[in-house]
């Protein structure tokens, strides 16, 4: 509740900057599954992103506790996908910080001439940080030249150096989990969009990530295929996976989300439990919901 009132004037950078001080303790106390003293899975502090002259993110504060599902809603261009890509370092931060499991993303604190400065991590260290996070894309992005099971095995074999046979067994188990074990030897283009997206989820899970990011996972799907992907995501949430989901599926958000975040114009306009979908406080959120529901 406090968070929402603090965010009443989200356009004021100074205002949001103040709330940054209060945010760290709040979600732990507020979150139904979170406990005080637990390290957040993701903690974003005053995140800014600028592309040329475009200010996409204007100070995002967001904390995601382990084992919870955060759903980010908002109109296109609100910066929600950009935020997700920042968590996985597909983009570089312009300002602020993101910590994953208490570890700073992309940088390390070093001392230089007695001052504390940030040192950019090298590609290898960033790759290691990325491997802890699974990501599912709107356009699936499966490797078209490899079969389904090869897609799932790719990272375990070549990044985690798991022996091939074991990786294949584990890949089959992941495919079983998304209900596609019988399609293991197909090429991605022989599958429907929904099947491809389930393979993409299995591929991300194969690296045993602590966090899963979903960037509009059902937006490129035919309506009748949305359900199967949401079903897999729901079962993941039930299994206690930490998830951040950018989506337009309000029903899914209400049902599965522990924390709902509404973004617009590069700021968090409103956030809270799933009940805010039915009782939005902010006019802009109410307006958005009336258009998508």
């Amino acid at each position: 509740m406090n968070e929402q009132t603090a965010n009443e004037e989200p356009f004021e950078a100074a205002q949001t900057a103040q709330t940054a001080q209060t945010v760290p303790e709040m979600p732990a106390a507020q979150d139904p599954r979170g406990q005080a003293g637990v390290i957040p899975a993701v903690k974003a502090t005053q995140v800014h992103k600028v592309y040329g002259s475009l200010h996409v993110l204007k100070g995002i504060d967001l904390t995601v506790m382990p084992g919870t599902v955060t759903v980010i809603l908002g109109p296109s261009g609100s910066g929600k996908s950009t935020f997700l890509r920042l968590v996985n370092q597909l983009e570089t931060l312009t300002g602020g910080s993101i910590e994953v499991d208490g570890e700073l993303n992309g940088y390390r604190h070093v001392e230089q001439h007695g001052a504390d400065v940030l040192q950019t991590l090298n590609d290898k260290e960033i790759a290691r940080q990325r491997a802890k996070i699974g990501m599912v894309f709107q356009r699936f992005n499966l490797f078209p030249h490899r079969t389904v099971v090869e897609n799932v095995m790719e990272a375990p074999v070549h990044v985690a150096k798991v022996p091939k046979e074991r990786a294949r067994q584990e890949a089959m188990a992941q495919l079983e989990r998304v209900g596609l074990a019988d399609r293991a030897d197909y090429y991605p283009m022989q599958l429907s969009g929904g099947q491809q997206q389930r393979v993409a989820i299995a591929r991300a899970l194969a690296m045993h990530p602590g966090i899963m990011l979903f960037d509009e996972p059902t937006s490129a799907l035919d309506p009748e295929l949305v359900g199967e992907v949401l079903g897999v995501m729901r079962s993941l949430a039930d299994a206690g996976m930490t998830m951040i989901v950018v989506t337009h599926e309000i029903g899914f958000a209400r049902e599965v989300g522990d924390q709902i975040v509404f973004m617009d114009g590069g700021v968090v306009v409103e956030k809270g439990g799933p009940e805010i979908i039915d009782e939005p406080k902010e006019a802009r959120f109410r307006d958005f919901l009336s258009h998508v529901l």
Partner: protein
Amino acid sequence: MARRKQPECPEVPNEIKALPVRRPGSLVAGVIVALLAVMLVRGMATNPNFEWDLVWKYLFNEHVLNGIGWTLVLTVTSMLIAIVLAVLLAVMRKSVNPVLRGVSWFWIWFFRGTPIYTQLVFWGLFAVLIPHLTLGIPFTGIHFWQMDTAQLNKVIAPGFLAAMLGLALNESAYLAEIVRAGLEAVDPGQSEAAQALGMSRSMIMRRVILPQAMRIIVPPTGNEVISMLKTTSLVSAVPFSLELQFATDAIANRIYKPIPLLIVACFWYLVVTSILMVGQAWLERYFGKGFDGQSAMPAGGDGGDGAAEPKAKAAPKASIDGDRTPEFLGLNA
């Protein structure tokens, strides 16, 4: 399962059986062109100046067959060197390091901007230009190893190294642009997905980008191989005197009969080119796997209703790929 095999045509009770559209113009044009073709063939067969008996006599001449061998060796070796260089140049061209980018740009600018014949003459004069090669510490007098470049001329066969390098370096510049176009054609989402899995930059290039770029790179590279085969006829500029063109030319000069030996040369170039085209088609199928729905049907996987559906979806994809092939051929022919 039944649908996976070629299905029988379904019965349509009111199937249309109409006469085809009438095209009198196309019939006339066909007759005229066929007539011209017959006249041409007859003229070639009966014109005594072609001297077909001499063509036949020298077709399997030892020097000619050796010439084919050397032409093939030159084509294959210089093409392999060119491919390695081209991938390197293309990756350098996309590097974050401005020095690497600049060197790659300069290389392509130079080797594409000067005629291959001139370059080959240049390589032939390499020993005059740089008489000694030394290995040592730069800008000091210290060296560990030294050789006369004139000796290089004798490696394998006289002029071979110069001919091979001349062809390879020139070709690398053209191929580098083909490779770069291929790399840029791969969906950036592929690289992002690979990054998200924690793959390193070099691994992404090797395992994700390049294999997919190959599909785009192979057709124009096939043309380059065929073009290279014919460009080897220029290495007399070095001079290298063992390949097909030079061999037939030498015989022609000896017996004062240029035309029949030109026909011999043409015949063999056509034979090799045709074989290369078969190889190219095979490579295109190989690197197209996963992109066309046909090559990729899993063996022994259980079919069910789902199996037929993706095949139907993949079919238009295949026809799109088919349409694109001639475009590449036209571009580089």
